[in-house]
């Protein structure tokens, strides 16, 4: 009996709920159920949604909570199959050539010179008796060719290295894929997966996230932070602030020891919420209205003198 992972895989939706909660990940019913169904049906889960709503964090939390290894394949344009599977350690091979008989090719492409990249790692981990979480992050950034290749891997879990032969996973890992929809993924990959859309959180959910992630924050301030960020989620901006920005902003306000949001505070901290110049300029213009809109300003201080 393998002892590699001490924690047994979750068996009910409640287990998943508790696991996520233990990592301070705030999950609604749709998230919990989709993860649970993926587990039950043994299928990859494709998670889509705007930037910064907690797609990547799901995989991290799931792995962290269950004590499983997290294997992350970060996709980017031009990512090709081999880079995602393995690479040869050329430096060590070079050293080896210097020292050994250079005509011995078999030796040169020996397993000890092999650097495991995420997909190969997912296969070998399963051969070693553990069940990792494989996160294929931002698949939309990779090319269609890579997507097609991935589709094969996802169905066979078999990897061929010309110099070493074919490796077969003992069990498919738990797979999460994410996409920001900078391009539409193929129907083929969607078919292969279950699907979860995560939108910007409701006010209540975001408040819960802030209170979990920034425990020192004052309750009223947290609510005002969430209310103000919520009012920013309109099409006016180049980049709408996500949950990551809400959390950063809440942390900043706590660090600055502000107990309420006034216009000056908002202006001073705009850089935390927005990344583009245009957005910052527009937000600065609207600062007064934004603060007024959430009623976040404190009651006026008692007149002095």
């Amino acid at each position, binding site marked *: 009996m393998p002892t590699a992972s001490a924690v047994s895989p979750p068996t009910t939706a409640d287990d998943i709920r508790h696991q996520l909660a233990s990592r301070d990940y705030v999950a609604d019913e*749709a998230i919990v159920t*989709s993860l*649970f169904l*993926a587990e039950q*049906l043994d*299928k990859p889960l494709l998670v889509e949604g705007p930037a910064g709503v907690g797609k990547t964090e799901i995989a991290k939390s799931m792995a962290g909570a269950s004590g499983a290894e997290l294997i992350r394949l970060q996709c980017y344009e031009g990512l090709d199959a081999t880079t995602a599977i393995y690479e040869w350690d050329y430096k060590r091979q070079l050293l080896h050539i210097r020292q050994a008989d*250079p005509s011995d090719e078999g030796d*040169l492409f020996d397993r000890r010179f092999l650097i495991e990249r995420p997909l190969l790692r997912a296969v070998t981990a399963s051969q070693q008796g553990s069940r990792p979480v494989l996160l294929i992050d931002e698949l939309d950034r990779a090319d269609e060719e890579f997507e097609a290749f991935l589709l094969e891997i996802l169905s066979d879990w078999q990897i061929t290295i010309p110099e070493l032969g074919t490796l077969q996973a003992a069990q498919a890992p738990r797979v999460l894929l994410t996409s920001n929809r900078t391009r539409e993924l193929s129907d083929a990959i969607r078919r292969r997966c279950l*699907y979860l859309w995560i939108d910007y959180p409701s006010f209540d959910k975001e408040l819960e996230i802030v209170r979990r992630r920034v425990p020192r924050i004052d309750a009223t301030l947290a609510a005002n932070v969430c209310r103000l960020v919520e009012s920013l989620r309109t*099409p006016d901006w180049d980049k709408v602030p996500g949950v990551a920005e809400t959390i950063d902003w809440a942390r900043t306000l706590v660090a600055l020891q502000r107990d309420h949001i006034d216009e000056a505070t908002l202006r001073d901290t705009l850089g935390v919420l927005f990344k583009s110049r245009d957005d910052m300029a527009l937000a600065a213009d609207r600062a007064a209205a934004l603060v007024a809109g959430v009623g976040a300003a404190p009651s006026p201080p008692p007149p002095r003198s």
Partner: protein
Amino acid sequence: MAQPPAGAPYQSHATLADAAVAFCRLLRQRGVTLGIGEVTDATRALGIAHLSPEGHRAALRAATAKSAPDLATFERCYDEYWCGAPAPAERRDTDGDGGTGTALARRARSAGEQTDADEPAADAATGTYSHERSLAERNFAVAAEDEVADIAILLQRLGRLLARALSRRYRAQTRGRLPDLRRTMRLMLRDGEILEIAQRQRRPRRLELDLICDVSKSMDVYSSFLIQFMYAFQHAYRRIETYVFSTSLHRITPLLKEPALQLALSRARDTVPDWSGGTRIGESLQRYLADYGSRLGRRTVVVILSDGWDTGDTELLAGAMRSIHKRAARVLWLNPLLGSPGYRPQTRGMLAALPYIDVFAAGHSLDALQRLPRQLLV
């Protein structure tokens, strides 16, 4: 909110499967693409015990609604099927033409009626070249019935040629090489020394294209030609998404993948409920932004094919165009009316959109479409 039937009567696998099949059929009728895999997963999702009402909905959603634009349809179907919400009234409208002949033939007929006497008719005796020449300049709107088939063939060819030209140009613009260490290593084994670093070709960075075609009533004489063009283009250029709109926007990329052109066209027409309907460009482009806006970026070129006759909210149109222009690499607007001498873009819609257009061109004839790659890349 209404609840799914608690302790529902469908417990055996057969009844679960029946429920899954029936629900999936409803989704399909409303335009969600589903395969046998989705039906199987839905059946298994239904078989999971102890789901809360929310969980029941979420499980079915994860198994069947596989893309963001399908989600709203899913919620409506779920309410209807599992919670007994009233079905929405049938939306298929206006098009009384019961589908006699192909869309193209239909267009041909209406186009034929409008044929102007002052357009010189193609003379079969002048030979293929000049025949093609005159077809190339022919405004789609006044193409005669017997020219339509020829134009269709030329459109196909043009679409493919342009797509290839586009791929080639991009490769040429982005030539770059990376060292290929694996091959270098093998060469070393052979030669014992590093004499050359093997190179591998860097992948070309391609353009992403979004074609958005107006298929409202006023575009009738053009749209079937333009869709054929989009069809041919899409078959030869992969980084492309195609959409049509009249009162609402629909992504038809998967439909155009169908290898038989006529079938693709009639499918597209059947799936889009408001084909030849009114025009709400602003609302449609807002929909585009909401559902597909995440595609926009430094390498995305948006091509809108429309005459700019808008019966919707002009403010919305201006707002949508502003966003698209800001986020896309380039915005082209092909307005077939520009091909008519004396046309001035003075409709309210067109005026609202103009400030946010990089290239404003005609696209009313083969010749006009031929300029597209240059316009895309400049």
